[in-house]
């Protein structure tokens, strides 16, 4: 940006609010003013705190969030020099100048110029972009014949052209395959699959691959990981004693829903109000576990009234973050500072959930593991029920076949045993049961001790209309339907929130980068029209999630190389224009699954109770009620996917935590991606990774060929899906040689290393040789490339 070099001396004019503009490579100054893009973010960040929607803290009786109020005296359209606003923001008198010095906010010269031009152009307000229903925009015409005609690509290309940029070339086949594998299934492709794909000349090969991945069970597991972050799914209650709770069938329901490609509107309705649906069955009840996922406290001495208020706020925060991309939680104590949500709106939404039976645990929730949070049901998941029915039918058939009774006996016994164990595997899960709704009052300043506030009924935020006609009390089901009703509800907004999140999942950064806030303080989308079209596409497709995934990953934009030229790195360091793909470290679950997959240990069993990997002794020492002893699983559950790992809110597994998995105490729409020493210590020293390395070493030795060279290549290929070059081979070979020498002199140490983990070390290989190769495998599992999606 050319303004970067024109920093004014301090104290004359503030320089620091290039914040908004520095972020976007667009030269907003040279384009016609767009209120939502150019002006509203400044008003919101710098002015609304005192001159916004919240009447309680409004200064000088001036509000700048509506055109009518702003034009009253602060702004005279067409003439910046007449209204107060421009005079105050440009005043030379520090005491006069807005924003006030003690607010810590300042306007930059650029922002002041924007205000001036906006006022000159009539100071028109536009409705806030996110609340305007999305509509389809014609895609720009793209002239490049090498580029695709798909509308996503046309939007991307057009914008790049305006910026004088060009898209990156398509990623090589290996990179593309790894990318789409991780993105859709959360797992790496096998070396064999990569080989087949690279030599496949079928122009439809990529499309077929995508279809295959979308049809795999692993797709649901990968997508569920994201959803479970949003809804804060965990195996423990969160507060105080952080006791275990019964909820895993809900997790499996989410995975199934993704795999079945359940329509998103149904997905929404079943979770919020499955119990209220006509023909509500067991699966719909499991889905209502959503309403029970909040944190609860089982501490002696909690006051139920206080905690019901805490729970209510927790629900509104989560519900509004997840489905509305809104921070309505901010309106708990006062009207929202930046968005038109009032405190009354907050409590009106609370009221929708006032029928959820959540008070039983105050009496029945003990310090046992798991604790009790009735209402709970004992259930089989849909797949479990299908398996049971299948087995029962088979057993019937075998029994009916009297002629071969003798021959069938063994098979019959096996099936019967399997059936018995399946039946026994029924799990308890928390569900929503509607009871007489609690009376909900507006709590003045959020104070639960204050009973003077008005009583409110369930209602959507007032500025968004009403949820239904008539006198009946609105229900959670009405709320759920409103969320996905594109005609009379807020379906367009919901679609936009999730279109943005789909994009984020497949590009690493959203079209608006604030995944949990599309409100006034959120980021205005970099590609508003593209986002609109994706939103419309989402609901017009019948809220078809797999369709959205396929649409995005088939785009040429998605398939670009992630290698950025220095110029591009400079111009667009955060990849907001998508002139390349993004490169980022894998999320925690994928780090784990990837290592296990490469090693050959990965257990792809589907669904079930949560699993416990190795964990440092004493990690739960700070817990009590009851004190906790962690016992890791000693069978093949040890190697199951990360999505099934026991989620202890207060002490999340240290491996997960080190790689930025959230505690799931609150909604997480976007994880941090850090590179910390603690994470390095995990992948170097955590027994899960050491055992994986040793198993990988065994694979290398048994499958990798006959000599060091072939084996090093095999190892490298299986870790990063490509062959090693001469330098890489040399470095790995040095390590191998050195480790061989050391371990051959220290046989005992070699034996110790290969004894790590519950998988028995191969007896066919000498300990020293296996230990040396384990070192090589550890290096391979620690490579940046191994753990990067690019």
């Amino acid at each position: 940006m050319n303004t970067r070099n024109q920093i004014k001396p301090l104290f004359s004019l503030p320089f620091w609010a290039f914040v908004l503009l520095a972020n976007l490579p667009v030269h907003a100054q040279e384009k016609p003013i767009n209120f939502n893009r150019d002006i509203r973010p400044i008003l919101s960040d710098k002015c609304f705190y005192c001159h916004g929607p919240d009447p309680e803290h409004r200064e000088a009786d001036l509000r700048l969030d509506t055109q009518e109020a702003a034009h009253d005296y602060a702004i005279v359209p067409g003439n910046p020099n007449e209204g107060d606003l421009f005079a105050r923001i440009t005043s030379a008198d520090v005491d006069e100048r807005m924003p006030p010095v003690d607010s810590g906010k300042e306007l930059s010269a650029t922002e002041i110029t924007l205000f001036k031009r906006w006022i000159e152009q009539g100071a028109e307000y536009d409705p806030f972009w996110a609340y305007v229903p999305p509509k389809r925009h014609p895609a720009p015409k793209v002239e490049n014949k090498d580029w695709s005609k798909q509308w996503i690509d046309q939007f991307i290309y057009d914008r790049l052209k305006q910026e004088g940029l060009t898209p990156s070339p398509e990623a090589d086949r290996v990179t593309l395959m790894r990318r789409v594998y991780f993105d859709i299934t959360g797992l790496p492709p096998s070396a064999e699959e990569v080989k087949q794909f690279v030599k496949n000349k079928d122009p439809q090969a990529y499309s077929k691959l995508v279809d295959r991945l979308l049809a795999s069970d692993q797709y649901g597991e990968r997508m569920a990981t994201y959803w479970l972050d949003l809804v804060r799914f965990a195996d423990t209650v969160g507060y105080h004693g952080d006791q275990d709770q019964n909820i895993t069938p809900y997790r499996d329901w989410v995975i199934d829903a993704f795999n079945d490609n359940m329509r998103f509107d149904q997905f929404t309705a079943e979770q919020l109000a499955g119990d209220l649906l006509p023909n509500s069955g067991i699966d719909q009840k499991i889905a209502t576990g959503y309403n029970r996922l909040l944190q609860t406290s089982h501490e002696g001495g909690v006051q139920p009234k206080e905690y019901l208020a805490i729970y209510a706020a927790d629900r509104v925060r989560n519900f509004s973050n997840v489905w509305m991309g809104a921070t309505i939680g901010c309106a708990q104590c006062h009207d929202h500072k930046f968005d038109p949500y009032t405190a009354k709106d907050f409590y009106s939404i609370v009221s929708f959930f006032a029928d959820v039976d959540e008070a039983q645990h105050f009496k029945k929730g003990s310090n046992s593991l798991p604790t009790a949070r009735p209402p709970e049901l004992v259930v089989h998941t849909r797949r479990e029920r299908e398996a049971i029915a299948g087995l029962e039918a088979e057993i019937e058939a075998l029994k009916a076949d009297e002629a071969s009774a003798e021959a069938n006996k063994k098979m019959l016994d096996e099936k019967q045993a399997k059936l018995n164990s399946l039946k026994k595997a029924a799990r308890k899960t928390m569900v929503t049961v509607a009871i007489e709704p609690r009376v909900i009052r507006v709590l003045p300043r959020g104070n639960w001790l204050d009973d003077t506030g008005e009583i409110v009924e369930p209602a959507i935020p007032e500025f968004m209309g009403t949820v239904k006609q008539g006198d009946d009390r609105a229900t959670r089901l009405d709320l759920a339907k409103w969320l996905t009703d594109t005609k009379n509800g807020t379906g367009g907004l919901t679609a936009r929130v999730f279109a943005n999140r789909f994009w984020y999942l497949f590009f690493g950064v959203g079209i608006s980068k604030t995944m949990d806030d599309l409100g006034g303080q959120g980021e205005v989308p970099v590609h508003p029209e593209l986002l609109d079209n994706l939103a419309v596409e989402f609901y017009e497709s019948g809220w078809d999630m797999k369709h959205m995934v396929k649409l995005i990953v088939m785009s040429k934009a998605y398939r670009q190389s992630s290698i950025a030229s220095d110029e591009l790195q400079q111009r667009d360091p955060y990849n907001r224009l998508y002139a390349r793909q993004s490169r980022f470290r894998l999320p925690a679950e994928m780090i784990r699954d990837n290592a296990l997959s490469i090693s050959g240990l990965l257990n792809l069993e589907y669904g079930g109770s949560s699993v416990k990997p190795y964990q440092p002794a004493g990690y739960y020492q700070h817990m009590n009620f009851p004190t906790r002893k962690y016992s890791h699983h000693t069978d093949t559950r040890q190697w199951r996917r990360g999505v099934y790992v026991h989620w202890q809110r207060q002490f999340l597994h240290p491996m997960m935590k080190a790689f930025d998995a959230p505690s799931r105490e609150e909604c997480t729409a976007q994880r941090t991606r850090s590179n910390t020493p603690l994470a390095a210590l995990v992948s170097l020293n955590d027994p899960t990774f050491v055992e994986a390395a040793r198993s990988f070493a065994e694979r290398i030795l048994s499958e990798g060929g006959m000599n060091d060279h072939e084996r090093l290549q095999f190892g490298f290929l299986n870790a990063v899906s490509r062959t090693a070059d001469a330098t890489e081979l040399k470095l790995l070979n040095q390590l191998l040689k050195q480790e061989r020498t050391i371990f051959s002199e220290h046989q005992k140490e070699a034996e110790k290393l290969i004894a790590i983990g519950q998988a028995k070390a191969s007896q066919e290989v000498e300990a020293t040789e296996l230990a040396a190769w384990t070192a090589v495998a550890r290096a391979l599992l620690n490579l940046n490339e191994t753990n990067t999606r690019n």
Partner: protein
Amino acid sequence: MQNNSSFENQLNRRAFLSQSGVGIGAAALASLMGDGASAAEISAAGVSASQFGGLPGLPHHLPKAKRVIFLCMAGGPSHLETFDYKPKLAEMDGKPMPESFTTGQPIAQLQGQQLKCLGPLTKFKQYGENGQTISDYLPWHGKMADDLCIIKSMVTEQINHDPAHTFMNTGSAVSGRPSMGSWVNYGLGSESENLPGFVVMSSVGGRNPQPIASRQWSAGFLPSRFQGVEFNSSGDPVHYVRNPQGVSRAQQQHLIETVRGLDQHRNQTVHNPEIDTRIAAYEMAFKMQMSVPELMDVSDEPQHVLDMYGATPGDGSYASNCLLARRLAERGVRFIHLYHRGWDHHGGLEKYMDICCGLTDKPTWALLTDLKQRGMLEDTLIIWGGEFGRTPMFQGKGGAGRDHHIKGFSMWMAGGGIKGGITHGNTDELGYSSVENVVHVRDLHATMLHQLGIRHDRFRVKFQGLDLGLTGVEETHVIKDIIA
């Protein structure tokens, strides 16, 4: 901030002054806004945060304290048996608690019970030049009375342990906010190159040790590298800090060097700007594998020092943790947070005060005294206290005790530019409500930040559309009266 990759953060920091940082908030600007010392003065004093990986522009003014040692007496010690002597409460012992005190107030385990006064269960004496009032449970505190600033007028907002700790640590009861140790490291960086800047240790002893969630040292929405790292007295001092069995330090080093070589080689093709951060993380990890065990090994401490603390190496006691706290402070760790779990005295208060004070009184004195004799007390801020106090009302879970109480309780601060030998604020005659110079938790936070050279109202980060800081948006005051 949570949206940024670590590279992005790094880039932000580097680029801040030239293009204004995205999402960093107003923090860094404050020193340029005419507050406190000039950038030149701060730089001349060698305290500029950017040299330690902190925010450019911090500190806002010349700091008095370089580091904080927070001694958390988890469970909530009784102010009425430590620093807040109430003769009137003694008179009222056994009588009904006047309803004028309790009506409409939050209450924990005593809900629905008859409330009666419980007089102080111990005696108090005057100590030091100014005659500070300290109970007989804390004789070693008496010896350092002239260094302590006792605050008798604390108030907090949360009456149950878990949210009360969260409130004390983050200024909010909502999960997901950064803890103070993370804030301080985020702002000022860490002077230690091979230890984390925020270290947490805990010990147990007393009544019904209350759980402490790792949320208490979470970095919240700040970058993960600012989270507190637990140091354990048994097992691996830091999780995964030990090489896998059978692997020597030289081998581990060779492995890491191989990874670095391969990463750097690959980077010639892919130009990943984040690679330096990653390599640095591995190098720091490797250094920690050496420096952490070295730190924990106190065999180089002379016997008289061990005796002074009452520490037996490796026993995981509060005494050992105090000694380790001093060693961490010496190594430039910015924020050291000790928890001693055992102060939840709903019943058997006398018995458990004997235990808790027996375990913590002398080591606390030793820590302060040791720092002082090494000339480190002047730039180390020590803060002592629980997540709340205890009721003037009787509770009897196994002998006389007290319930949770948030309207008035005591803490103390020492060193780091805080006046010693003074008492600040007071509660009412029954020790129920803070009535004089009331100090809210956020005032404590603001004062702590002030001593570190940070203006709390200028130290903000954008999260979910809000400018969030440790102190929030409610009215907050630095406690000027206690600053030396």
